């Protein structure tokens, strides 16, 4: 098979496998896991192939059904989505391996459906990334959201209510996105992203375009959990099964953030996003508030999953802040933070899942002695926590570095202060956990048993891979920026 079909394969393989799984699941309950992992691994290979192609030849365009854009659906892959696609595939493979034991313990008997829906979710995410068609993005967005609703609903006893909330709010978000698409379609008669970007040039004065931009921002803001539209996020992340949290938290909001970047910088052009609207200015303030708000609320949590969920809200703030700064450094910082945060959050939620798997608790107070029973997991936690705080040489430091650089280049000192304060607040809540994990003085019988009881290998290895990734990404960050992220910066951003 030649390489030109890779863009469709990366979506098609997981989709087909996800429909085979229920059939196979009728007579074999073990196979779906292997099939899901294999499908994701195949997608990863395809994504790497695409990445390679993009790096060598520049953007790829793939015409579905042979119809030329703007009539047919076009898959359009440039550096930005090739990069995020590789990231999503990579994290997916490892979280999928990780999920086997966890989901068997937490939801016995649901494995078949779990892997079916997980693959659908994966398909949705990848679909959003490869496609170059606004409406197709909506379809894949809803595929991924629907699968996410289903996955979250099999969580703990509060999961159903959290899911319902998520469904309602998520649907509003999707509707707003669709409304934005509708207005763009009305104004231009096209749905193709690149077609739109040329057709829109003479229309920037029109109110319709402004309205549609606002709809996009609201819709995608909901989908990525941007403050103050984040209300679905903490419940959904917290009450989902641990494997699902570990999958959704690092990926879903990131892909929504990608769509946001795509819409604001490819569909609309930079001059519109920054000059015609005061929106970027407002958004960056919202992001700043999100950063502080998420961190402060995270401090007050006693449930570690809740804490991580609020920390996600603040991290989304970082991503939006970087993008809205409107300069090269900030943009690079954002994209780098998408990468880094996916690794960090994936690692952290996976660790929490491993703790739940072994000790059945997610209350931070009960983590005493954890470093004795699960030394490697604790070490991985320490690495991920340091990265969240942004201490060198972990990956988190470098995204912060670029974000601060961006804020300074933009002359917005307030945001420098915000990022500084936020990293201190991060330090407060992560060191609280670290203290409990490593040094909590013995107090009565609430501590965990002392004997070594490390997570099973199929969970431990993904955790360690992600933790090692955090360290490696730190050292490789400049290389990654030079190779890929530097190319993603949209024209017009200096």
């Amino acid at each position, binding site marked *: 098979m030649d390489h030109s079909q890779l863009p469709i394969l990366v979506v098609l393989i997981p989709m087909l496998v996800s429909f085979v799984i229920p059939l196979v699941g009728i007579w074999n309950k073990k196979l779906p896991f292997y099939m899901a992992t294999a499908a994701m691994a195949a997608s990863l290979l395809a994504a790497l192939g695409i990445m390679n192609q993009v790096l060598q030849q520049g953007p790829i365009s793939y015409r579905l059904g042979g119809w030329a854009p703007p009539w047919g659906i076009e898959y359009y892959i440039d550096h930005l989505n090739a990069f995020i696609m590789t990231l999503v595939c990579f994290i997916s493979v490892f979280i999928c391996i990780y999920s086997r034991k966890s989901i068997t313990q937490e939801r016995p008997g649901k494995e078949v459906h779990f892997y079916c829906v997980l693959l659908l979710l994966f398909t949705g995410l990848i679909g959003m990334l490869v496609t170059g068609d606004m409406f197709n993005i909506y379809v894949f967005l809803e595929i991924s959201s629907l699968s996410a609703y289903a996955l979250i609903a099999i969580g703990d006893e509060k999961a159903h209510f959290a899911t319902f909330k998520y469904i309602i709010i998520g649907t509003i978000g999707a509707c707003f996105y669709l409304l934005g698409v509708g207005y763009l379609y009305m104004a231009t008669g096209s749905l193709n992203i690149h077609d739109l970007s040329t057709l829109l040039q003479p229309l920037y004065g029109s109110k319709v375009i402004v309205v549609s931009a606002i709809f996009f921002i609201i819709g995608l803001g909901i989908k990525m959990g941007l403050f103050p539209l984040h209300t679905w996020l903490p419940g959904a992340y917290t009450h989902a099964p641990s494997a699902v949290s570990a999958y959704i938290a690092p990926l879903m909001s990131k892909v929504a953030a990608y769509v946001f970047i795509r819409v604001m910088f490819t569909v609309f052009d930079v001059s519109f996003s920054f000059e015609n609207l005061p929106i970027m200015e407002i958004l960056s303030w919202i992001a700043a508030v999100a950063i502080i708000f998420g961190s402060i609320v995270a401090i007050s949590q006693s449930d570690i999953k809740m804490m991580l969920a609020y920390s996600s809200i603040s991290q989304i703030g970082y991503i939006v802040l970087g993008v809205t700064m409107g300069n090269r450094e900030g943009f690079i910082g954002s994209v780098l933070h998408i990468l880094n945060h996916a690794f960090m959050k994936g690692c952290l939620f996976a660790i929490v899942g491993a703790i739940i798997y072994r000790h059945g608790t997610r209350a931070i107070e009960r983590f005493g002695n954890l470093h004795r029973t699960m030394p490697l997991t604790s070490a991985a936690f320490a690495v991920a926590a340091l990265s969240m705080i942004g*201490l060198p040489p972990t990956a988190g430091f470098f995204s912060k*570095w670029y974000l601060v*650089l961006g804020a300074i280049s933009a002359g917005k000192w307030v945001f420098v202060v915000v990022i500084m304060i936020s990293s201190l607040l991060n330090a407060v809540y992560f060191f609280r956990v670290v*203290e409990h994990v490593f040094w909590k*003085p013995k107090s009565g019988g609430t501590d965990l048993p002392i004997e070594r009881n490390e997570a099973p290998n199929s969970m431990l290895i993904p955790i360690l891979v992600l933790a090692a990734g955090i360290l490696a990404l730190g050292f490789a960050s*400049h*290389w990654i920026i030079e190779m890929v992220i530097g190319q993603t910066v949209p024209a017009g951003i200096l």
Partner: protein
Amino acid sequence: MEIIHSIRPLLAILVSLAAAILILFFGKHRNIREFWTLAAGVVKFGLVLSLLPMVLDGKAPVTEILTLADGVSLKLRVDPLGLFFALIASSLWIITSIYSIGYMRGLNEHAQTRYYFSFALCLSATIGVALSANILTFFIFYEMLTLATYPLVIHKETPEALRAGRKYLAYTLTAGVFLLAALVATYSFAGTLEFTPGGILAGTADKPTLRLLFVVFMIGIGVKAGIMPLHSWLPTAMIAPTPVSALLHAVAVVKSGVFGCLRMLWFVFGTGLLSDLGVWIWLAGFAAFTIIVGSMVALTQDNLKKRLAFSTISQLSYIVLGGALLSESAMIGSTMHLVNHAFMKITLFFCAGAIYVNAHKTKISELNGIGRRMPYTMAAFTVGAMGMAGLPPVAGFISKWYLCIGALQAEEMLFLVVLLASSVLNAAYFFPIVFRAFFRKPEPGAGEDGLPSGEASLFMVVPLCISAVVSIALFFAPNVPLHFLELAKTVVQQVLQGGQV
């Protein structure tokens, strides 16, 4: 300066990292574990020492590891000031390691593996700080040092220790954030982060911005350097085991702070820019304030380690003051005080630790007559005390001499007075201890049992005697064998020449 590529600076850092892993690996066998500690110490010292001839020849060994951002790489460069600090740290590590073995075994402490592990990490970070070629590399090692020290501070794991640890982190991490902001700003102004004699910031932004930047830098670096009012983590961190305090206060952490301070003053801002901006006087003022107030607070402390801690705070500000005065002698004095204070203060802490292990005394008021039972220890303590007060024939005299001359050169009589007054205060809080130890009889109530029957174990006494002897030797021959004075003079020449250009 001629640049030669060499992997030795990197090796010097990696040695103790490797040792840290080996220590973790052999955690169950204490002899092997401690062998690695010592072996790494010796090898590291050897490596640093092997760099000395090159630097004296005017060459600068450089290791460029990888690029971190446009124009900034993880880069090590051995210049005279860095080598100066690296020599201090690596030589003292050997002594401290030997002493630690005695101390930890003497008290039968828990979690010794973690202790040696963190200790080794700490030293890696310190050498890294010393040899970094740019601010980003410096910052990376600086933060690593913060983290590696944290397990040492909370070694006891009591609620009090944890509180101290939290305070330590709160101060140092906040400082780290300030430093990060400052360095990002520097990068965006100057486009480079390379340490250059004479500075990189001159003319890159308007004066008020640069002044602000200076303040942010000094807040960032001043916490570890213990400049008042940013010092208060330091006495609290005294909860740590004594070798840690010794390391913290004499070698690694606070010295990295003042070393960083000198780096920022001379190699980022540059003497010319500093006097242009007029900010040096602010820093000198704060330093002078710290010198006096630190000494006065030390007077009121009864806990021996706390008194030493405040003495550290005040002595470190000598270095900062010397750095800020910008006259040649003051700068030489300031550099020399890095090494002199290190050896003298580590002697004092070693003595305090020996007393604690042997007699379980922490309060000065309980030390009556202890000198008769532990004569070597207390003799060494006396040497350290004399050095602190700046009396010959101990090394402290030399640095203080240069500092005073420097104050005269800078025509700032106020600071001369401060220096002299501080010497008197130093004498006032150290000599009563010596007096008690040798000339007072033990309290009758405490009985003869309250005092040890003899010296602490050789593991402890030998290191403290060595450091005391070195403190004296540095007075008589500051250039032999490690060429400290020569290095200091080279540094200052470089900086002043750079500043003129």
